[in-house]
């Protein structure tokens, strides 16, 4: 059914174009990208600043000109970056889409990277990093990712101090060199949803982006990370009111692996991050009253990148020892005893419902289409994967949980008003 909703084609020169017809009164939402991102840049900071600078000026237009142009056509446009893509996204009336795409092509082909705007952007990012240094959840997340992955792995994060040092080293010259290294029409993906046909979408992409260079871009290789030893990391922020705690394990598999669906559904049973339907919220929050929020997830995983399984919880300092023990208990329990048939049935249906509710507006449809193509998939994958999830039983899930979640190898990280030895036992 999803393969009927999101259709796609490949242009002779390499670009992938996706389209989802959705009635939005003459407007469209779109998400596009080329290979790039922090894996190509070497650091998240360079990838982020590079992307943001594309809207700051071109050889033909100043930042002000760009803002006025977007105003004139009633459009929104943003540039950003992911692990492995330079992304552009926005919305505009279908009649003005050609103008907006002409500008995106101009920003990619002729960015001016104005020095004044670079200084301002770097200052703004410094302020963001100063806030990040005091954010307990972010600091715990950084510490856990460093415990689980090597510096070469896409899921490894720099400390805030390292990020500040990298940021200050970014120059206009660095941006120009990075831009030249990634600019290629061969890796282009454009996903459009709204009042548009695939034929029209493909024609527009062909007209506006064909002139991009046809460079070969190869993402750097990295070795998958497997669970090795449990590490414990503390980030002391004594003046904060609460502790953010994360415990996780590297999985060593991508989302293309045969066990992924069962593991994903098992993690949903453990701590579905959407609301109160997971075990962790029922027990640690509702029954024991130890936290406001406690969830399980599998971050950093895609068709190309191996990710990790993680549980997060936030605790008042006095309740932290009990909260940590409760989380560890629930992980051990689900690995040891597995899940019930009733839980599997409910969570299978819930997964299916989420997918449908998620695809109920043009912006989400454009995003999902783009993400599928970025992972080398088509919408048929959504149909297949949903079918796989709906066929899972408690045995599949128990086997996957046992294989990948080894409680003794879970690393831990905590940030906030916490003693140095709080994770010792």
């Amino acid at each position, binding site marked *: 059914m999803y393969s009927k909703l999101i259709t796609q084609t490949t242009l002779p020169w390499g670009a992938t174009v996706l389209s989802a*017809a*959705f*009635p*939005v*009164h*003459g*407007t469209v*939402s779109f998400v596009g990208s080329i290979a790039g991102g922090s894996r190509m840049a070497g650091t998240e900071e360079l990838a982020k600043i590079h992307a943001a600078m594309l809207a700051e000026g071109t050889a033909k237009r100043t930042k*002000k000109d760009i*803002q*006025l142009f*977007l*105003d*004139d*056509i*009633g*459009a929104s446009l943003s540039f950003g970056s992911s692990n492995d893509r330079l992304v552009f996204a926005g*919305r*505009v*009336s279908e009649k003005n889409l050609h103008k907006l795409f002409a500008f995106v092509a101009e920003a990619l082909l002729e960015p001016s990277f104005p020095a004044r705007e670079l200084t301002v952007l770097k200052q703004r990012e410094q302020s963001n990093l100063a806030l990040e240094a005091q954010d307990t959840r972010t600091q715990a997340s950084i510490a856990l990712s460093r415990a689980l992955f090597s510096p070469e792995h896409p899921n490894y994060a720099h400390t805030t101090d390292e990020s500040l040092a990298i940021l200050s080293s970014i120059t206009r010259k660095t941006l120009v060199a990075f831009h030249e290294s990634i600019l290629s029409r061969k890796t282009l993906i454009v996903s459009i949803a709204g009042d548009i046909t695939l034929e029209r979408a493909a024609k527009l992409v062909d007209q506006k982006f064909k002139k991009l260079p046809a460079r070969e871009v190869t993402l750097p290789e990295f070795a998958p990370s497997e669970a090795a030893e449990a590490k414990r990391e503390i980030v002391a922020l004594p003046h904060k009111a609460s502790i953010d705690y994360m415990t996780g394990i590297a999985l060593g598999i991508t989302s293309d692996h045969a066990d992924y669906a069962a593991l994903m559904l098992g993690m949903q049973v453990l701590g579905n991050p*959407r*609301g*109160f*339907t997971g075990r962790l919220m029922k027990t640690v929050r509702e029954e024991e009253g130890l936290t406001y929020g406690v969830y399980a997830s599998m971050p950093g995983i895609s068709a190309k990148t191996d990710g990790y399984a993680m549980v997060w919880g936030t605790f008042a300092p006095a309740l932290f020892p009990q909260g940590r023990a409760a989380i560890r208990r629930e992980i051990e329990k689900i690995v040891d005893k597995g899940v019930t048939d009733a839980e599997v049935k*409910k969570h299978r*249906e*819930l997964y*299916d*419902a*989420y997918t*449908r*509710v998620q*695809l*109920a*507006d*043009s*912006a*989400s449809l454009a995003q999902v289409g783009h993400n599928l193509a970025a992972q080398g998939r088509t919408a048929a994958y959504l149909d297949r994967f949903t079918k796989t999830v709906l066929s899972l039983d408690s045995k599949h899930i128990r086997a996957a949980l046992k294989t990948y979640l080894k409680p003794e190898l879970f690393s831990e990280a905590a940030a906030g008003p916490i003693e140095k030895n709080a994770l010792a036992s």
Partner: protein
Amino acid sequence: MKTTPTLSKVRTVSGVTEYKLSNGLRVLYRREKAAPVVAVCVTFHVGSRNEAPGHTGATHILEHLLFKDSKKFNKKNKKAITDYLEWFGAKINASTWLDCTNYHELLPSEHAEAAIELEADRMRGSLFSDADLASEMTVVRNEYERSRNNPFELLEEEMWGAAFTEHPYRIPTIGLKEDIEGSTAKKLREFYDQYYWPNNATVAIYGDISAKDAEALVLKHFGPIPSSPEAIPEMTIVEPVQTESRAVSIAKPFGVSIVSLGYKIPEATHEDSPAVLALATILADGFSSRLQKKLVDTGLATDVSVSVPELRDPGFMTFTAQINEGVDLAKALTTMRKEILSVLKTPPDKQELARAVERILSHIAYDRDGVLTEVRAVSEAIAAGDWMLVYRAEEHIKAVRPSDILRVAKQYLVASGETSGILKNIA
């Protein structure tokens, strides 16, 4: 004697069918097959405008309490309101403002009945208690503190408080602290019993559900609910005409300084409203707006914005600028006023108006991206007095001419209707 409920078609406009249930409930239905989902939104025609002195904040607290147990959906029978719909993968939320309160869900279409049944049950069957109120007060207090800690919200609220002397719009929806603290389940129950009735509500059902099924579900679940035994109280206070300019001044260590100018505007259903929206857009919405050029591009401010709320009664639009450090705030305010009033001498030409209209048309379209977004927009229009405002907005804004802009500028940008605000950052 019990009578069988009936549902009568009233009209169909822009693909939306309006019905009236025999108990007075208005029903709006639109078939949309683009996604296999249904959005359900119940709008109660009660907002903070209906709160009596001493009971401010009641509408908002009641909104929170309607997520507690109801007769059919409660923790005892393991069908707690939030859990119940979450198991269907639903997106659930609610909101309260000056003129209305709404509760809405988006969920897979085959579960539409779950949302309709739940909304019907809590319309008259909510079981909230003092214990529920006590547990929810932490969240409500936190919301209150956050609004007082936000410099923009604080200045805006103080300006509305000065601009209105009689009408309840002078009190923010969150309420006054002493009233919030003085809330009891008994008082809130009285408020619930006055306003939460089918003849004071509209339910919108949009999505992949047939008219026949939607009609049957409405009759089954909302049909048995009786109309209110007494007439729903009307709020009849009329704000006296403002005859002199007013000013608000705040000095607090917020880290930012702000100046703002507000003017009285007509109710949303007034024929001048589209032109007022276009005027506000020309002046302060977007990078090409006049205040952006005068205040931001010259280095006086870092940002400008405008708020044009669409309300049931005559309201208040505000132009706001975050002022750069070291800039004299009184001078910034004077510059802002001068630029706003310059529209009287230099009205927009066709091109400037066309640019503003293009922006507004984009917003109108984005407000209808997906059935959940659309029913929420419809709920706002219901609050403002006419659900069809959503579907006529495009036609109305396209009809605005440069001469209309000059006319409404003369009518509403008057010194005697002005309220100014300055929030000065102190160390």
